[in-house]
């Protein structure tokens, strides 16, 4: 691996100061499961690596008074797997954070790292989108918040400006009769990058009979994870019983803008966008109807 200096900082301000001083040669190190692999393969370079894991508040999962969650940037997927509130009240997010990498990747990988890596196939981002998560960014001019669906701008690119650090994610409280799910397709059953992914969140009304609102986001079928507003617009206010799954699949396919690459074909991805959206919608409806009942605690297998 290329040579660099290592800076284990203990405050956000220290990190900001280093970023300001070292400019483009500095890289933030969080879980490291993407960054170190990229540095080894020469896909990214660094003169200074700033480790933010020792900043105490960034490892916190705070339950907010309104029922939302403040998720520190350095919280690992493994920590979240053991977090009862995360698991029970944010099922779409739990689905995603539980299947990033294998167990040993989970021990290091963070949701914020997955977001900032900005892979079109990132598992967490579609789920973050449908859960309406805000990204909290610290920078030279203070703190700002951006909605997660606007965070990624291109493969590997985000709205982060030079010198900025994502410090946390703010997850709003789920409404009543809420359910969400994230599903992805991989050729194996573990240790793969999503060929396509779909997250769906629904808010039902009328004792589970009517859609209040629906949010859908797709992964790995465009240059960034895609929010699919057309499905929400089509379903809002409609009775659940009248939904045409074929129509939903068709809307999802129409929204997908995939390419063919070594991990999948264009046709396959376009098709999977429909399949996964419908499957995730079913799970989300089911969870909303049982929204008092938590999803299973054990691994999905």
């Amino acid at each position, binding site marked *: 691996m290329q040579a660099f200096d290592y800076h284990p900082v203990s405050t956000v301000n220290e990190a900001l100061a280093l970023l300001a001083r070292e400019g483009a040669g500095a890289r933030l190190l969080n879980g490291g499961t993407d960054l170190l692999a990229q540095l080894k393969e020469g896909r990214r370079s660094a003169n200074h690596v700033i480790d933010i894991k020792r900043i105490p508040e960034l490892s916190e999962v705070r339950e907010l008074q309104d029922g939302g969650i403040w998720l520190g940037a350095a919280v690992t997927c493994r920590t979240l797997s053991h977090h009862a509130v995360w698991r029970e009240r944010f099922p779409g997010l739990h689905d995603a954070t539980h299947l990033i990498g294998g167990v040993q990747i989970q021990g290091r990988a963070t949701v914020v790292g997955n977001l900032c890596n900005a892979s079109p196939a990132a598992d967490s981002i579609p789920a973050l989108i449908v859960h309406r998560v805000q990204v909290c960014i610290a920078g030279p001019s203070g703190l700002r918040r951006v909605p997660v669906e606007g965070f990624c701008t291109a493969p590997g690119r985000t709205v982060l400006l030079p010198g900025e650090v994502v410090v946390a994610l703010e997850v709003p409280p789920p409404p009543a009769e809420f359910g969400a799910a994230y599903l992805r397709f991989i050729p194996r059953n573990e240790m793969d990058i999503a060929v396509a992914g779909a997250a769906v969140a629904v808010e039902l009304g009328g004792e589970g009979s009517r859609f209040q609102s629906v949010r859908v986001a797709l992964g790995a079928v465009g240059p960034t994870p895609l929010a699919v507003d057309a499905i929400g617009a089509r379903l809002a206010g409609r009775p659940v019983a009248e939904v045409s799954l074929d129509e939903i699949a068709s809307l999802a396919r129409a929204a997908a803008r995939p390419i063919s690459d070594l991990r999948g074909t264009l*046709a396959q991805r376009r098709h999977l966008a429909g399949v996964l959206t419908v499957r995730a919608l079913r799970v989300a409806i089911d969870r909303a109807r049982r929204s008092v009942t938590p999803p299973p605690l054990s691994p999905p297998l």
Partner: protein
Amino acid sequence: MPSVPASSSETAAPAWRVVGTRPVRPDGVDKVTGRALYGADLSLPGMLTGRVLRSPLAHARIKKIDTSAARALPGVRAVVTSADLPRAADRIEDLGEGAINLRYLSDNLLAGEKVLYHGHAIAAVAATSASIAEQALALIRVDYEPLAPVMTVTEALKPDAPLLLADLHTDRMGQRDAAPSNVASHLRHERGKLEEGFRKAALIIDRRFRTETVHQGYIEPQAATAQVQADGQVTIWSSTQGIFAVRSQVAEVLGLPVSQIKVVPTEIGGGFGGKISVYLEPLAVLLSRHAGFLPVRLVMSRTEVLTSTGPTSGSDIRIRIGADAEGRLTAMQAELYYEAGAYPGSPVGAAAVVSFAPYACDTMRVDGYDVVVNRPRASAYRAPGGTNVAFAVESVIDELAESLDLDPIEMRLINAVREGDRRPDNLPLSKIGYVECLQALRQSDHYRTPLTGRHRGRGVACGYWGNWGGQSSATAVLNSDGSVGFNVASTDIGGSRASLAMQLAESLGIDYSQVKPRIGDTDSVSYNDVTGGSRTTFATGWAAYELGQKLSAELRQRLALLWEVPVDTVTRQGDGFAAGEKRVGFAEAARLACEDAPLMVSTTVHPKGYGAAFSVQCADVEVDPDTGKVTVLRYTIVQDAGKAVHPSYVEGQMQGGVAQGIGWALNEEYVYNEKGELLNGSLLDYRMPTACDLPMIDTVIVEVPNPGHPYGVRGVGEVNIIPPAGTLANAIHRATGVRLTALPMSPPRVLAALWDKSGYSPFA
């Protein structure tokens, strides 16, 4: 728990004391505690780190290599290119892995005039640290003249295809075509009158198949260390399947006498045929020689392993088979085009024999073509060539059986070869256990349990592998406490220390725990062929057996002298020896026998009675019609082991071969872009099965003793990988009604096949 061996031998099996038990392997503790030293674990004083510069292009002429900046970098001790290799003779030699032209072997180590694949080695450096070595690589300038890559059989056979090797002419069993070609050779096996046979058929199925390049996928990357002394003596530490194969390859390409080279084996982290050809060892020797005789260690990265070491061939295959209304085969025809990679030497020869070997049919023709393409040079991979062709043949047989409304096992029983029947190359089969395997599967719980549920199907396929004997040597030293030091030079790649020590213990009539096996270097034990070809437990086992017999005879001699009785009155009794009233336990006999002089015996063997192996397999799958994903629900492998010396390791071979076969069948493939760059050179995207992708793999060991071995052993290492692709293709067909004719049967391919059938389009 491990399955119960289904013994189907007709006569009562002899009662062995050690053979057939399941002791802990002698090297086990070292391997579970992390103490065992593998190729990359070696460290020597002053050792330098080597790195290899590899071609980013698939096909190009090298105009110039400038290493001056790299040589000038502080910390760099040596830089070598093909200019440092002696000019190799244009001569064909068998150096452990079949015949190879030495010039090609040399060019594959360090590219000469041309690079022939993405990842082709161009230069190597040795430096005082890895990071300096990597910096040095970046300073080497190579000027290329890019050439159009030739990536597949189809492209290679085009009349205007670029030629990879200007001097390559198709060899047709000793006759060279006049014009140069990308087809290195053509072979044919034939018997009977083909078209007459097809005229007798009630049904003829004629299909074309494609399989992709796949890699052995051993978890330990290649690693080699070399130190040259000022007097020219060379020591090489290598993670290899065959230390003598390394010695002969290094000697030939570097022009050194074998007496000057000692090869020391490290533990080896998997090979499956891929660690026979050398890639690093000659470079390490050159670097050490140029670096002031310091030791140099070279370890490949995973990407280098995938881009630059031997995968096995992709192939285009046509199979045409006719059967009469009763299911009896009337004619069989195969056309096999195997991609050899950059240099000739695909396993198409073995494939041509495997093809129709399980079928008794007196009318067949098999044509095989060895085709060069701009991919890494193919090397052996477990039953080389077998899986490709069996996928094709077993698919067609299944289609015939289904069309004729025959049970797939019954179809194979009707046509099964038996002792005395001939393979496609007309060699007669000796005693085999194929019919017994088919019967064992038919009687298995798996096959007798109906499969229910939607999108599910059950497939059956079979496979033949000829196995190999080869040469082995070993020595045994009797210690005065009755224990035996046992020196072999067959690399232990999966528990052979145990299976060999067990045969020596059995032969000598002592406890397994009293045999202390040790893997020697090329100077300490005489010649051994590679651990490969399913030969070690068979052939080196023969040597172990002979050592036991010789030691026993020598002990009787010495006891006879001591006791002053004729030697033929000294007999084995219980755990020791007796003559008349006199009797001693083995340990006491050893003490007495060694009083005057130490006792050591040695043996060399070259057994030829390696019995052929058959395997029959059955899989239940479920296919997700929306995603094309295939889930293996249940898998049973039946295999004739002759005699399972250590049943756990026989089961392990069976399960491991099936696992590799399932990976090959469902997801593994080399993905190249149009420029010939390998896109998936990592274990993330070269998708080998994980623990989540496989079910338990049930094993049924059939034991039809091989008359060519004292304990009836047949090789068990390879045949198991031959049937899985066909087994799964047939299961997928029964589950979905579609027949996949290309490997891997990955989700996008399954989806496309399902869409073809249904008329669905994701763009509608």
